């Protein structure tokens, strides 16, 4: 067990390194650089009289004219010393913002996943128990509604309905959960719903197939044979065992959400890392991009490890090598 954990943790290192190299290479070949954007204000219509000489001068000042491997080595060295660097665009330390934004995104993801879970698991159970009946079809269609629409469409429609039908929108000015919980919930519930709506299909599908599988297992058959009621069979035996893969898969899904709620954050004005990331990409601010990606990657990998461990504890059939 310990060896397994140590081995997994050690494997983090090459993976994170590969992540940073991929990002660095991408940012290196992506056209456009921060210096240019700083001088033009990142507005397609404001770049008029920027002199090309000034651009070169600023590139040198920001260190963007150095060879890419030197830039990478410098960045890595700073990173190892715990210095995430300063945003190229804002010229403020990345670390100042990252923490708070990360917490916000985690809150959003937790709320989204939670809502999805609450709705999707019953839907999945219904469709498994009533496989190939009308109820199955209805619950499956319901679960699929969200995945069949791009998130931005859901978000825009929600905004339109709130603004043009109810003449109301969640208050501006993001409030922290622990400072003004009520305002925070008003602001977060709609983006969370949009995420939940989108994730319904996934969780419901996993629940359904997981339930179908367990219900065919021997012990469930035994339980049935013993004369337990159908509800008893489902609740006591099937669901208990089916939940394991559901939780596992949701865990992985959670990791995916951390880096993937950008559009929802942008439209619903949630100051999370998704918003930060898209801003950084627009500005070609690779210092910020690197910091966010490394953080997300590390958290996701750690999460996966924890899930695997929990899985192993709960399912004695798994053996760690």
């Amino acid at each position, binding site marked *: 067990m310990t060896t397994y954990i140590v081995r997994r943790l050690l494997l983090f290192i090459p993976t994170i390194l590969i992540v940073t190299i991929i990002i660095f290479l991408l940012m290196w070949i992506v056209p456009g650089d921060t210096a240019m954007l700083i001088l033009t204000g990142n507005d397609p219509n404001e770049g008029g009289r920027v002199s090309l000489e000034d651009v070169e001068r600023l590139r040198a000042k920001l260190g963007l004219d150095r060879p890419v491997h030197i830039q990478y080595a410098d960045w890595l060295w700073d990173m190892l010393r715990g210095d995430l660097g300063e945003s190229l665009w804002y010229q403020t330390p990345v670390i100042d913002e990252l923490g708070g934004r990360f917490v916000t995104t985690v809150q959003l993801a937790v709320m989204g996943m939670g809502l999805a879970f609450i709705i999707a698991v019953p839907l999945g159970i219904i469709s498994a128990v009533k496989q190939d009946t009308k109820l199955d079809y209805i619950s499956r269609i319901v679960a699929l509604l969200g995945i069949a629409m791009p998130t931005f469409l859901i978000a825009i429609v929600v905004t339109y309905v709130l603004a043009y039908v109810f003449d109301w929108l969640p208050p501006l000015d993001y409030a922290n959960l622990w400072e003004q919980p009520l305002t925070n919930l008003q602001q977060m519930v709609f983006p969370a719903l949009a995420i939940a709506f989108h994730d319904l299909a996934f969780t419901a599908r996993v629940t359904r197939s997981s339930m179908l599988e367990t219900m065919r297992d021997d012990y469930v058959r035994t339980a049935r044979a013993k004369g337990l009621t159908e509800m008893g069979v489902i609740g006591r035996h099937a669901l208990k065992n089916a939940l394991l893969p559901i939780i596992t898969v949701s865990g992985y899904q959670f990791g995916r959400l951390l880096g993937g709620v950008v559009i929802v954050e942008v439209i619903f*004005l949630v100051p999370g890392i998704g918003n930060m990331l898209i801003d950084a990409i627009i500005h070609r601010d690779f210092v910020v991009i690197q910091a966010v990606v490394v953080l997300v990657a590390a958290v996701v990998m750690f999460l996966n490890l924890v899930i695997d461990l929990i899985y192993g504890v709960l399912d004695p059939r798994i053996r760690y090598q």
Partner: protein
Amino acid sequence: MKRRRKTTPSALILITISLTLVFLIACGGAATAPAPESDTSAAPASAAAGSQSAPTAAPSGSSSQASQPTAAAAAAQPAASSGSSAAAAEPTPTVQPVEVQAPETDWVTRGKHGRTMKWVARNNPGFWDVHYGASLTTTLTPSGPRFNQLVEYNPVNPEEIIGDLAESWDVSEDGTVYTFYLAEANWTDGQPVKASDIVYSLDRITLPDAFRGRTNSLRNFYEHKTAEVIDERTVRMPIKFPAATFMVNLASDYMKMYPEHVAGQLTQEDANCCPENMIGSGPFIFKDGSWQKQEAYEYVRNDDYFKAPRPYFDGFKVFLIQDVARAIATLKVGQADGTYYPVLSTYTEFVEQLEHDTDGRMRALFMENVQRAGLNFNWLVEPYDDPRVRTALWMVIDQEEIVEKILRGNGTVGTHFHVGFAPNESVEALYELPGYRRDADGAKAQADLDEARRLLAEAGYPEGFSGTITSILTGCTATSAQLVKDIWKRELNLEMTIESSDVATLYAKWRSNDYGVIVGCGSGIILPDPSDILNQWYGLDTMRNSGNWTTTEFEALKAAQAKELDPDKRKELFSQMVELLRDEVPHYLPTGWMHAGGTLDYRIRNYHVPRTIQMIHKLDHMWWDEDAEKPPIGTGYQP
């Protein structure tokens, strides 16, 4: 439940779809809105600063005993009256000179104090040093209200240049030495504003080898380190030559005055990064720690402002909302009092609808003809190196169609310089010219289309050619690229593909001349003087002219207009430039001039739409009047 009714899954899908449909339609509020009624709706709703007769500011000295600065006054004909909606209602610009209105001053005592305003803005702040910043939205809009200039455009009469920190000024006989007498003012840390601060700021703006985005034009007039302190409150500022546009530039909102004892301690990075690092003398004070990136920032009132009783607002908070639909929705439900800066192109096509949607609470306002649409040709590569090709491609474009479809009526046809500037440039006169002609039925003249085809054939492309239009994927840049592509295919048989990207990539291509045509839309003018066009589009080694298009004659005219003090003669020089540009076919060919739109609550009083987006950013003249009368819907914002 037991009985199995034949509900097929497809029926379910149909029900779902129809429910969605009903849902969507319901949220669209009946969704019966017609296409924007372009010319009828734009004009009356507009509170723009007068007709576009003479876009050059006509500075008329300071409010006190200032002698008339001959050089500055020389800029142009007296301009149109400002702020009067009657003038704005004129659908087509004319060149008739209009009397300058006497500056209204009694508003200062009518203003009411109170209320913290909430604004909606699109762009994030980037750099807080106004001298450095190259962009309106990342620098001036967020940072401007903290500072004063030496002189400013009169906020209630944007044609006029009046004193800001300078109470009055003198100009020497030969027009090369300005003497500024300062008002009694304090920085927000309580230190007095001294002549040495002004000299410091002028030298900071013109610092050699430092990047100076929008302030670099001062270098054309002022030699670094030549201004002197005469006494505590008097500054002597020599300029390189008697210049027509010196004051026009100095009054620009970018020419901010900084306190030497604060700014002198800051590195460029520190001045840029953090609004907390700098103070000014302006009407509002930045609220420490209020900048949350991609979210909001906040200003509070400067109680010690030297123009008491201004400012009137207790402060204001700016909410940064990237998504335009969300921003409009925010205004719709009353979470904000207006757009910020009040007039920005982002919201132009939505503000009239918003006025209806909010039952007249949010008023539409427009600033006319302040942005350009046009074709940027890479004139170094085939086939665009042939002037005939450039002319043909430009000539087939129906500018009226651009105005109707892309600008949704919020614009007019135009040419190289500010609409209506040169004597032969009125819209009526334009319709006589190739490229603008109309047939009897009002459609684009067949003669122009034939001429374009002839030119293209003459250049060796009778069957058309294929190429790439470089564009970005959003905004009117994207829509105009599509329309232009369609027109070229329809009329000239060109097979163009649109290559779109984000701004950074577009710039990278532009800089390295890695493009064929860039269809531009929305490029804003900075100053209400045609020299601004020369600065922005015809500078050498700049991004918009990365191929360095020019001719000897053109350079000579450029130099001559800067020194010409007689407004009529200067206008004549620009007329010559227009002719020359018509013959020589430059790298940039205009396809229209567009208005910028915005919206303010009707209870916000005394906002007079300036001549360009880049002017009057201090907001110290506006106030909130809870009891203001709501004008009828559809009439736009009234100051």
